[in-house]
């Protein structure tokens, strides 16, 4: 057996599984978004489903909401994670506890965190009760709507809670492999602490920060169960709207659901390209 055949045999099962499931799933979604579905007598692909979602106000509002959720969550989580990584790089009493909490958070399913955020920030949640005890509000309705709200504040809070540890761990792994030499060198050459951070450390951390942020953005944009628990009735996050269109008893909305899934896939692919670039995939390993 030549090395080539051996390699091909080692890779074939994984590629078959992923090709058969992932690529087929994506391909079928694409075909049906063009309303190509021979079993239902649809044999002439067209763009009617895309035209339908683009002219309905619900889709654009949901797309905007999901982009807002993903952007705000990613920016806040990335900024806080950078600070947390710089903090955890130093030794201080209690660092082991925080390190444990960060790892613990990573194992917690999103839906559990979403329920925790709901019980904290809803209008009858823990903070509303504290506000009542402090005499700030009289009833639950006086407390600002932070969950099921049109600005998706509860959803963003969940992602900040859940993704801050994720980005922090990626950055800490990067810091560990860098060592402290570069910054120290910059300092001995006369750079201030800020300059050493801004012009030496930050550029070195940027690929890791960008790739982790791309993953977070994609997740916050496309996750279903988090807006399911914390989202408003209207506008709905795009994944919730797409699922609703797919499960609508009226089968005519199915191609529209497929078109929404393709929009989500398109944004995912753009992020994949960003991730691959930050990761420098062609030089990887």
């Amino acid at each position: 057996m030549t090395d080539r055949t051996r390699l091909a045999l080692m890779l074939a099962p994984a590629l078959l599984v992923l090709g058969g499931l992932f690529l087929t799933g994506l391909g079928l979604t694409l075909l049906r978004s063009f309303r190509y579905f021979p079993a239902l007598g649809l044999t002439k692909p067209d763009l009617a489903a895309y035209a339908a979602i683009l002219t309905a106000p619900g889709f654009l509002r949901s797309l905007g909401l999901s982009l807002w959720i993903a952007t705000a969550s990613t920016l806040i989580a990335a900024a806080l994670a950078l600070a947390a990584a710089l903090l955890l790089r130093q030794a201080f009493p209690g660092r082991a506890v925080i390190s444990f909490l960060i790892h613990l958070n990573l194992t917690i399913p999103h839906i559990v965190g979403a329920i925790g955020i709901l019980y904290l920030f809803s209008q009858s949640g823990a903070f509303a009760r504290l506000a009542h005890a402090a005499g700030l509000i009289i009833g639950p309705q006086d407390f600002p709507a932070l969950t099921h709200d049109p600005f998706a504040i509860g959803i963003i809070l969940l992602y900040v809670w859940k993704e801050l540890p994720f980005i922090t761990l990626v950055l800490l792994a990067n810091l560990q492999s860098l060592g402290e030499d570069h910054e120290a060198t910059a300092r001995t050459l006369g750079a201030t602490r800020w300059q050493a951070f801004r012009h030496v450390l930050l550029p070195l951390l940027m690929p890791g920060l960008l790739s982790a942020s791309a993953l977070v953005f994609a997740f916050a944009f496309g996750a279903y169960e988090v807006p399911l628990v914390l989202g408003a009735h209207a506008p709905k996050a795009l994944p919730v709207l797409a699922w609703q269109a797919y499960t609508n008893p009226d089968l005519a909305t199915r191609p529209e659901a497929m078109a929404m899934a393709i929009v989500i896939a398109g944004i995912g692919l753009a992020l994949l390209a960003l991730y691959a670039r930050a990761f420098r995939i062609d030089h990887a390993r």
Partner: protein
Amino acid sequence: MRARRLQSLAALALAGWLVLPLLPLAIWSVAHGWRFPDLLPQAWTTKAWSYALSDTAGVLNSFGLTTLIATATTLLAALVGVPAGRAIGLHSFPGKRLVLILLLAPAILPGLATVFGLHGLFLRLGLTGTLAGVILAHLVPVLPYMTLVMAAVFSRFDPAIEHQARSLGATPVQTFRFVTLPAILPGLLTASLFAFLVSWSQYLLTLAIGGGRVQTLPLLLYSFVAAGRNDVTAAIALLYLLPGLVILAITARQITGRSAALTEGLRP
């Protein structure tokens, strides 16, 4: 001195924020009638726990089912992902970039991008509403994770020791059993544990492919959220965290394996 204090303050704030959403879950699970505006429940009870652990709630069944699905998915992913990880970690070959992109795509693209098409495919194959269908669907996020982590594990493996074993008369099976496997085992174990968690956390794929007939723990959990049963919801949510805690405890000492599992294939 001021910097020191600022540092402690930031550390405290971070620790507090990380724990905060878990506190109401812990309290709700043992609360008896915790109405607005009470800061704490009027009485404490283990009723939610005994209900959650009773046969009628179906939580234990769901727990078992979710464990079965995650275990089967992980074993399948290991079977397929270890050789692929070896090929990627140890060799360069034409098209490697494409293979890496195919592995990264399911990890980055939201499940929603493929789940409708997958549902259509499984409908035709008669796999919707079945355990096998859900396990296969879970391979979409789990297999890339397993393969990428194993690629990182193999990139630190020196195949020269296999050649030595072979030249000393070991059969290929013996070489794998006594040379290769022990070397990759810590990494494989950690990758498997975290792969288990990836499957354990799936929501949408199970909902779509299982079609309500495969009731895993997160689906059951949401039905209690929707019903407004905060006490039972909290108890189930805490039960749902158990495997993660066990896995953290097991991997706590395996720094090398865990760092590979976390940094090479880490998912939000």
